[in-house]
């Protein structure tokens, strides 16, 4: 089991991003995903600058993967995805079938992101024919379904070259829209959003009228209100043959979270997997146990 760092899902200022990755260089992360996956208008880094940062992090010993936009509508958005897919050196995480097409045309291996909707081994097999080498399980699937998919993958003879990654820590991306809910909150049209997302480094919490932290608004993306935390279950992931647990960046304590995950999966005894002191939202693990995603089952 190794640790990966997902792309930053929020709109952070350039200096914050630079500092964040400087901190991550020394962390026990095997893989780092870089790039803007939510909104094309967030340009603290231009596409070429992401590629440049990727080169630097590669030189420091990380495997770096460039992540593509999940929802591609406008021609300009597709242009950015093309530049990433044709970078000529670095592995790409395809988060839309458009990126899969661009990568498979070039006969390049790729990582299939969670939004590709891979729900069975037949889909895996087909996408492996197009170049997929690693896949990120859709966040709504459970341990038992993953076990069945991987058993089927074994029967189909495709498990040998396949790596599996599970979104293990962070607010889970749940939905994408043409509308921007952050702009909507400010009564602004999406075309004139004034880049309000910059004010919400961990998204904009959305509560039910009786005060439950239900969802997180992050521009055009809607995330879980709770933070998925699968460290207490890491053995069941490892037993299934999961290769990477993905940690999704948050504005504070990401380094400590990575350290904690590393100590536990590295076999250190007696480490408390409790993280509440470092988080602004409660945790959940329901999906992994076949329940509604918002539920919390494990007591740590």
């Amino acid at each position, binding site marked *: 089991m190794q640790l990966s760092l997902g792309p930053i899902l929020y709109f952070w200022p350039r200096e914050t991003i630079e500092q964040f990755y400087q901190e991550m260089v020394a962390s026990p992360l095997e893989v780092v995903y870089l790039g803007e996956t939510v909104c094309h208008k967030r340009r603290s880094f231009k596409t070429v600058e992401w590629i440049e940062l990727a080169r630097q992090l590669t030189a420091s010993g990380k495997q770096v993967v460039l992540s593509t936009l*999940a*929802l*591609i*509508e*406008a*021609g300009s958005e*597709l242009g950015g*995805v093309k530049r990433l897919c044709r970078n000529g050196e670095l592995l790409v995480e395809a988060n*839309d*079938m*458009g*990126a*899969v*097409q661009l990568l498979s045309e070039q006969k390049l291996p790729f990582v299939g992101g969670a*939004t590709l*909707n891979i*729900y*069975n*081994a*037949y*889909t895996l097999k*087909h*996408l492996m024919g*197009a170049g997929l080498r690693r896949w990120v399980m*859709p*966040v*709504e*699937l459970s341990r038992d*379904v993953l076990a*069945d998919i991987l058993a*089927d993958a074994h029967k189909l003879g495709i498990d040998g070259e396949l790596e599996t990654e599970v979104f293990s820590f962070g607010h*889970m991306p*749940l*939905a*994408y*829209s*043409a*509308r*921007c*809910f952050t702009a*909507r*909150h400010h009564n602004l*049209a999406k*075309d004139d959003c004034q880049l309000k997302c910059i004010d919400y480094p961990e998204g*904009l919490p*959305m*509560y*039910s*009228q009786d005060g439950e932290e239900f*969802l997180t*608004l992050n521009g055009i993306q*809607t995330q*879980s209100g709770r933070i998925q935390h699968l460290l207490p279950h890491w053995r069941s992931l490892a037993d299934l043959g999961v290769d990477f647990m993905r940690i999704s960046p948050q504005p504070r304590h990401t380094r400590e979270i990575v350290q904690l995950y590393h100590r536990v999966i590295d076999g250190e005894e007696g480490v408390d997997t409790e993280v509440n002191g470092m988080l602004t939202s409660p945790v959940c693990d*329901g*999906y992994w146990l*076949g*329940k*509604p*995603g*918002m539920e919390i089952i494990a007591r740590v």
Partner: protein
Amino acid sequence: MELVCPAGNYPMLKAAVDNGADAVYIGFKDDTNARHFAGLNFNDGSAQKAVRYAHDRGRKVFVAINTYPQPGGWQRWQRAVDGAADLDVDALIIADIGVLAYAAERHPQLSRHLSVQGSATNVEALCFYKEQFDIQRAVIPRVLSLSQVQQLAQKAPVELEVFGFGSLCVMVEGRCLLSSYATGESPNTCGACSPASAVRWEETDRGLESRLNGVLIDRYQEGDPAGYPVVCKGRFNVAGSTYHAIEEPTSLNTLELLPQLQQAGIVAIKIEGRQRSVAYVGKVAGVWRDAIDICAADPGRYVAQGRWMETLAGVSEGAQTTLGAYHRPWQ
């Protein structure tokens, strides 16, 4: 343009055909389709009858097999594909890559349409499905603006079908897990969104409350029109204000855009609502039949007629209709 109407049962199919649908889409009675609701959909017998009724009148039948199979249920999706082929239907509407691969290999002669649940919003994605599975048509998500639809149509390697009327998903179809986050069941996994079994209504001192698996989705004061508690259509609190934080309960109606859609080369207009009634589909099909015919005859002079709009408003969910993403400012 082809008018594609929904049917959740045989009487709905007849109403659709009798009122001018060129094609009707149906699903089987299980989780292989995205409207897996109790009492809805077709078994082998009723599907056979439906296909005969439509074919005798020169209309087409499409079968939606548009959820994402998980390992335990794979055979059900295979059976659905084989069963639809045996019924001699005119096309399958599929989202999952594994199912597309199976259908293309086993029944190459049977047309494949990419379901809206396949989330194809750009030309490269359409090229992928065309090259890999030789799809004939794609139903495109309700998130694209009119100019984006026009641009996509210029370059698309396949026919495009767009939604014209019905409930509006504000999220990209096939990319929304809000329902399973709250209830454990989603359109992708179970063909269900905000399932009825998770809904609870409660009269309280603070008003009528609708809950989904315990989560308070909305609260209504006397006289407020209460709507079904779909996760994205509730009122929530964000930074101190309570409002429809994601989407107001409105319906999509693109009748006004018909000439532009026709001009763009869109081949088919889809009506949402297999879960609605016989009266709904009959009225909606009638209006759209008239509109499409008038628009085809003289697009330059076409206007959405008042009586059409009235009829459609009368069967809309929610008090108002919207152009949705087709109208750029909505985005």
